[in-house]
């Protein structure tokens, strides 16, 4: 589904990612760990097409398409979703309205008809219930005045509605209390399926107790320095990154 080959990328004018290779097959969950500033968010931003990150070398193919050639909104339409490390506030824009606009824009990209507000409302209420979230979040402006945890939950909620094929979660577990963490993990697990893949960026093994990854990678200084299974995350939790000699 996703093939990252020999990627070098800049964030702003700083070289960050170096010779990065990663293959994600349908249905797989990959966890990415690594020290602060190692380039984890940069990787997420590169895949999502955020303009401040530019590849200087290498290629990314997604479902057979050259991902780097696509505009960010086209990538979203193709099914790439990024849960932001720092979700953005949009004052005055009702969360539900925002999401419906996004939903319909993606449908339009795929040549499907839009959904009306009543139909969307029904679908959304169902999702909210499944996710054990409160629906007052729908009426509020996008992320405005949300607590840190609420913002993260909102990202997961959006993911659940948009049903991407590749979801990248950038530290969606940071700053969550234990109940919220379960809700977030539960949201991901509900969406797990044979044809949907996840890249989960996290600092904590804790999340991986709830979401079992197929692979764990350690990103250091812009490179994947080690890959392994769930066990690797446990070792990192106990010993830190020092022993990897990064």
């Amino acid at each position: 589904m996703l093939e990252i080959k020999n990627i070098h990328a800049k964030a702003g004018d700083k070289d960050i990612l170096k010779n990065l290779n990663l293959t994600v097959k349908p249905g797989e969950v990959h966890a990415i760990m690594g020290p602060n500033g190692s380039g984890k968010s940069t990787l997420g931003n590169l895949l999502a097409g955020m303009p401040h990150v530019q590849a200087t070398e290498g290629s990314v193919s997604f479902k057979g398409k050259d991902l780097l050639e696509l505009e960010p909104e086209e990538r979203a339409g193709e099914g790439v979703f990024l849960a932001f490390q720092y979700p953005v506030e949009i004052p005055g824009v009702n969360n539900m309205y925002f999401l419906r606009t996004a939903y319909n824009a993606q449908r339009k990209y795929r040549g499907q008809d839009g959904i009306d507000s009543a139909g969307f409302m029904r679908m959304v209420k169902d999702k909210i219930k499944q996710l054990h979230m409160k629906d007052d979040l729908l009426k509020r402006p996008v992320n405005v005045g949300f607590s840190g945890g609420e913002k993260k939950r909102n990202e997961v909620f959006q993911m659940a509605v948009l049903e991407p094929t590749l979801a990248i979660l950038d530290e969606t577990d940071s700053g969550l209390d234990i109940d919220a963490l379960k809700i977030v993990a539960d949201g991901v697990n509900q969406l797990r399926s044979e044809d949907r893949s996840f890249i989960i960026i996290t600092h904590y093994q804790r999340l991986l107790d709830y979401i079992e990854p197929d692979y764990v990678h350690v990103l250091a200084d812009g490179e994947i320095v080690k890959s392994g299974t769930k066990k690797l995350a446990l070792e990192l939790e106990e010993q830190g990154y020092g022993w990897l000699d990064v």
Partner: protein
Amino acid sequence: MSEQNEVVIDNQLVRNRANERYKEGFYTDIESVTIPPGLNEETIRLISAKKKEPEWLLEYRLNAYREWLKMPTPDWAKLKVPEIDFQAISYYSSPKTKAENAPKSLDEVDPKILETYEKLGVPLHERERLAGVAVDAVFDSVSVGTTFRKELAEAGVIFCSFSEAVQDHPELVREHLGTVVPPRDNYFAALNAAVFSDGSFVYIPKDTRCPMELSTYFRINANHTGQFERTLIIAEPGSHVSYLEGCTAPMRDENQLHAAVVELIAKDEANIKYSTVQNWYPGDEDGKGGIYNFVTKRGNCAGKNSKISWTQVETGSAITWKYPSCILRGDNSSGEFYSVALTNNYQQADTGTKMIHLGKNTKSTIISKGISVGKSQNSYRGLVRVAKRADHAKNFTQCDSLLIGKECGAHTFPYTESANMTAQVEHEATTSKISEDQMNYCLQRGIPEEEAISLIVDGFCKQVFKELPMEFAVEAKALLDVSLEGAIG
């Protein structure tokens, strides 16, 4: 208020509208009677005679004209106004049928005019009328028809053209005309008082809640003409009325002048809500053509506990010079001003409000949202004055500016004058750009750039949009989208 009042606008509708770029820019080919260009006392006598006006009104006009001759053109606004040749303008133009024999019923109105309003989305026919909204349709210099007259009359409400009011209710007109905006008030008000041709008149009797929204749709059609309309709304004690105003003009290379005066009078416990969606032709991308819009709007909260609320969405006109204001004379009276002004290309807007606190415990709220795109210049100008005896007067002002692009400008000129120690005046101002983060967030969710801008701008204007009646909010949002065209890049 509650979330249910939140205006969530269907994007499809908006998109359909946005695809039609200044769709109001058409011209109706109709035989009209237009007096030759030029302005002198004879012109004024001619207009007055055409309208069969009483002597006192002719005197009123002539006095205003003589004052006007002595006044300098105002130059304090942050506007570059090319010199206006007042002798090149025709001051009166009316569709022929109307001029010869003013129709009393809409059946007699020229079908081409009915068609024009239909095309503008304001059908006047009995069958297709907007539900719950009475319309006075002003075409160039005359009112061509007013809907729902019978229903309104049953409630005791008078809603008719200004000219009719002069004929049928001269005592009401004479008592109130010029009491809020005297002819001497300013250059354009004086000009209007001299040459005004038509407009709307509203009278709401004591303790009456007007049974429907009242609205006037102003249409400039003829070329080389100006539109000088006059609106007067009188709300007797304990009455309520909501009034809407819309306006459009054909696309032309020439600039056309529009200088209106609106006077509102709210007596004890009366409540007037006045909403405008101003969509005069703004000129093209190179700044050619467009309406010069110089308007004096003022409300007098004459009675205790009275309230006047102005809401405006200004997207049109090449130049906008407009300060809907409130004189808070009655104790406990309150004034509100909610404004969205969007300028694109070479448009210039200098708009804001004046809140004059005279009575005790008077309250005013000002929410202004300026959006500048392209090479446009957008200024907020506001005055809050608290008189000596206005104990415990309170004002809250919030001025937000949003810049889209690098070549536009936003300016804020808030003035405060307080002569009373107990006054509470609060001012907040922000200037922001649509942040890259907001844009990226929308894009990542699959929302294309143009739609994302519209979404963010809509959010920015929410506080004002929610003050508009629903049908108008949809219209306003659509207009904003049309006006934002070309905002990207």
